[in-house]
């Protein structure tokens, strides 16, 4: 019994930082609809700034003062980010802002490295709270008790702010109906800035307050990201009490997980999430998302037409020229080109559902990595010939997408996105922790193609056939009746359903097709690298895909492919420099601000403006 109580208290104490960070994310999303990928970075900054302040400020007042100041400082950094990076792109397509926040992650990573150095720092202990208290014979750290006591106060303070003050009323109103707030004569942009300050400050507080239980390091930002997304989704997006309940639920379950199923702690969190969302699709205290009557937010896409003969000839010339690459360039460039094509296919498959279907998947890496793992497992265990394994990669990934799509498509919008993320993380954690079968972190190696493809040049042609073939096939599908049905389901579900289109089924099939093509890319990948590791299933990989699709232009047909090619090539070049993350982050932010329609979208818009003087008859 004593141990049980002690475990419960540990869970409650762990929930403190998680709740603070997650509540900030939830607030920011609720009001601004921005999915802030850089929230983990604010958390990391809070920890480092808090640490630095604690070195200077003495005693208990210094300690607690440092935590508050760290929150304040991070809040101000949040304001800077909001003003400089996000404000210019509020009018961009929905979710485009997440690309900007990804740029912020990269910039903060390198700045933190410059300022605080590479070594982990151990947080100081809380003055006066270093010891333990014995509760029913079990040792419980005093600081844990302090955390348990503080968190409800923070929750209460936030609740008071939100429900009892004028600012809070506006925040709540904005959460439910942004236009209405504008109509009330409130300056919406300053409301957004204010909420960003509060959200970032909460993340900073979370980072600083966990210092006595840990410290600060440069991997904190990504390490907390999945957990806080899970907490926000389980609690219900925009709900503070929900975030608290979810943080407690996850933390307490985790403590018991550690005690009774220590091998599977990673999986546990995502299983809980899947169960909760099955029973309550919008989280414990979340409200059903009121989707717009007409599908997408923002300017509608332009009509599309298959490429004309001129364009086809030019593409053909380009492909023939690409085919001659091995004869004119150094061998390495065929390898680089292989990488580019594989990533382009991955991006094109994501773009298929994201652009045409309006389905934002945050977990597309699951199918890329899934396909690669299917092939690798077949080679590893069944000694299957490369050709068969390669063929089964897209099929396996497609089947995975059939299952995940079925689960996720019951939801829509951001909830759909979050559930795809959670299920992709579930796949990742299974692969990562089931190492008897998957090799875990050490992956599966020696997965090489058949002898006739072992030469880089031969494999390059193989990749051209299947990779570019896949891209062209996806592109063709956009122009088929199915592609039209998919766009119809995006543009107006009501109209589509009222004219006999089973929109969910169309979207389900599209999701599965996209998964299969991502799996094809994964199959090409694994045989070009000879190995596969869980990193190819990680959130970061999914984010890479999202970023290139948005950067390329989500509302254009070739956006994904162009974005992928551009990013891969830029990255190949830029990573040769010392502070490449800073440079890449700034570059991404610059592109986001200068070209909010994405690379292709902005170029199109430019030409459209030049040559047609704003007419509406321009065809793709």
């Amino acid at each position, binding site marked *: 019994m004593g141990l049980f109580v002690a475990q419960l208290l540990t869970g409650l104490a762990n929930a403190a930082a998680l709740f603070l960070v997650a509540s900030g994310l939830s607030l920011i999303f609720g009001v601004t609809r921005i999915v802030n990928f850089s929230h983990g970075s604010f958390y990391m900054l809070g920890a480092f700034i808090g640490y630095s302040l604690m070195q200077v400020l003495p005693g208990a007042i210094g300690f607690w003062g440092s935590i508050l100041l760290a929150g304040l400082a991070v809040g101000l950094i949040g304001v800077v980010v909001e003003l400089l990076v996000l404000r210019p792109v509020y009018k961009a397509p929905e979710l485009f802002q997440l690309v900007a926040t990804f740029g912020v992650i990269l910039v903060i990573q390198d700045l933190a490295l410059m300022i605080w150095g590479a070594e982990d720092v151990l947080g100081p202990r809380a003055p006066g709270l270093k010891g333990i208290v014995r509760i029913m014979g079990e040792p419980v750290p005093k600081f844990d008790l302090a955390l348990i006591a503080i968190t409800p106060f923070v929750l209460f303070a936030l609740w008071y702010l939100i429900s009892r003050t004028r600012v809070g009323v506006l925040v709540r109103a904005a959460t439910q109906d942004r236009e209405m707030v504008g109509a009330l004569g409130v300056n919406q942009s300053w409301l957004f800035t204010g909420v960003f300050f509060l959200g970032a400050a909460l993340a900073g507080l979370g980072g600083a307050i966990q210092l006595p239980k840990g410290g600060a390091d440069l991997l904190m930002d990504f390490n907390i990201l999945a957990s806080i997304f899970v907490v926000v989704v389980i609690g219900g997006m925009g709900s503070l009490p929900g975030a608290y309940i979810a943080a407690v639920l996850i933390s307490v379950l985790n403590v018991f997980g550690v005690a009774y199923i220590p091998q599977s702690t990673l999986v546990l969190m995502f299983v809980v999430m899947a169960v909760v969302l099955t029973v309550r699709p919008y989280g414990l205290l979340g409200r059903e998302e009121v989707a717009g009557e007409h599908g997408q937010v923002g300017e509608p896409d332009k009509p599309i037409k298959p490429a004309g003969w001129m364009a086809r000839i030019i593409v053909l010339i380009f492909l023939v020229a690409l085919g001659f690459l091995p004869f004119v360039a150094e061998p390495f460039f065929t390898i680089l080109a292989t990488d580019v094509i594989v990533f382009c296919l991955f991006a094109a498959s994501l773009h298929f559902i994201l652009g045409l279907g309006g389905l934002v998947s945050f977990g597309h890496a699951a199918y890329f990595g899934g396909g690669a793992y299917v092939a690798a497992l077949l080679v590893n265990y069944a000694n299957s010939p490369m050709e068969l394994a390669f063929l089964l990669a897209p099929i396996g990934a497609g089947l995975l997408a059939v299952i995940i799509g079925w689960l996720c498509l019951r939801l829509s919008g951001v909830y759909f996105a979050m559930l795809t993320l959670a299920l992709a993380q579930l796949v990742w954690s299974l692969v990562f922790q089931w190492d008897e079968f998957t090799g875990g972190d050490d992956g599966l190696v020696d997965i090489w193609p058949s002898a006739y493809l072992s030469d880089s040049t031969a494999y390059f042609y193989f990749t051209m056939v299947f990779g570019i073939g896949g891209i062209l096939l996806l592109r063709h599908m956009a122009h088929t*009746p199915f592609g039209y049905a998919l766009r119809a389901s995006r543009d107006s579900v009501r109209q589509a359903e009222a004219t006999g289109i089973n929109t969910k089924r169309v979207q389900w099939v599209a999701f599965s097709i996209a998964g299969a093509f991502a799996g094809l890319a994964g199959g090409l990948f694994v045989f070009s690298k000879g190995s596969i590791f869980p990193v190819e299933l990680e959130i970061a990989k999914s984010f890479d895909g999202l970023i290139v699709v948005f950067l390329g232009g989500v509302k254009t047909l070739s956006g994904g492919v162009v974005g992928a090619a551009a990013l891969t090539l830029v990255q190949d070049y830029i990573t040769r420099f010392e502070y490449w993350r800073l440079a890449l982050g700034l570059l991404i932010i610059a592109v986001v601000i200068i070209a909010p329609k994405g690379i292709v979208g902005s170029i199109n818009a430019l030409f459209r403006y030049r040559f047609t003087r704003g007419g509406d008859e321009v065809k793709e």
Partner: protein
Amino acid sequence: MSAVLDVSNLSKSFGGIDAVSNVSFSVAKAELLALIGPNGAGKTTCFNMLMGQTKPTSGTVKLNGETITGMQPRKVWRKGIGRTFQITGTYASMTVVENVQMALLSHHKRLFDLRAYAHKQYKSEALALLELVGMQDQSERACAVLAYGDLKRLELAIALTHDPILLLMDEPTAGMAPKERIALMQLTADIVEQRQISALFTEHDMDVVFAHAHRVMVLNRGELIANGSVEEVRNNAQVQEVYLGGGSLYHDEEQETRA
């Protein structure tokens, strides 16, 4: 005379409030029937229940004798009901003619065709329908740039793609100039006449209603308070009271424009 549509005791309540209560009526073959009533009378809820967008609390809807109550809209559509909406919901990213072609593709069950070029399918049929509603010269424009009245006409063309036996038209002339309204309703009346299909429509413009409807029903606070010929309804004391109290029977008040 067998009814095409037979509605009996249809009710819908939202959280204890009755939006529609105990509505019964039928639509005869080749009949142009108007459903009028002040804002919030329950007309759109009624339409939504007929086509399945909203599930009724109780009551039944029969189409040609077959019960279709609570069926999903896409299935109701396949049974032969076409619908236009009060607030249009066309596919903004497609051209006008592609919008019609999309419905034709659906009608011909080719939604999962992954080979053909969609824009080449059923183009002549689609253009013929557009011509019928007077939209042929705008067929290649992007839907997103159309005037609201044109969107309404496009929706009518779309609703006709599967040769429906019944048309449901929610505010078909909203957003149009008075002359256009008359023209569109005349067109609808012609279609009803020529194709021998039935049409049920809601409308705010009483000139339009009284000029074209074969029969008029009046809904107030979810209840059907009148059902009869144009003359009967015009002279119905209860109807006059409702309209004099809440709005105007002869005035055109354009209150529900594009959101």
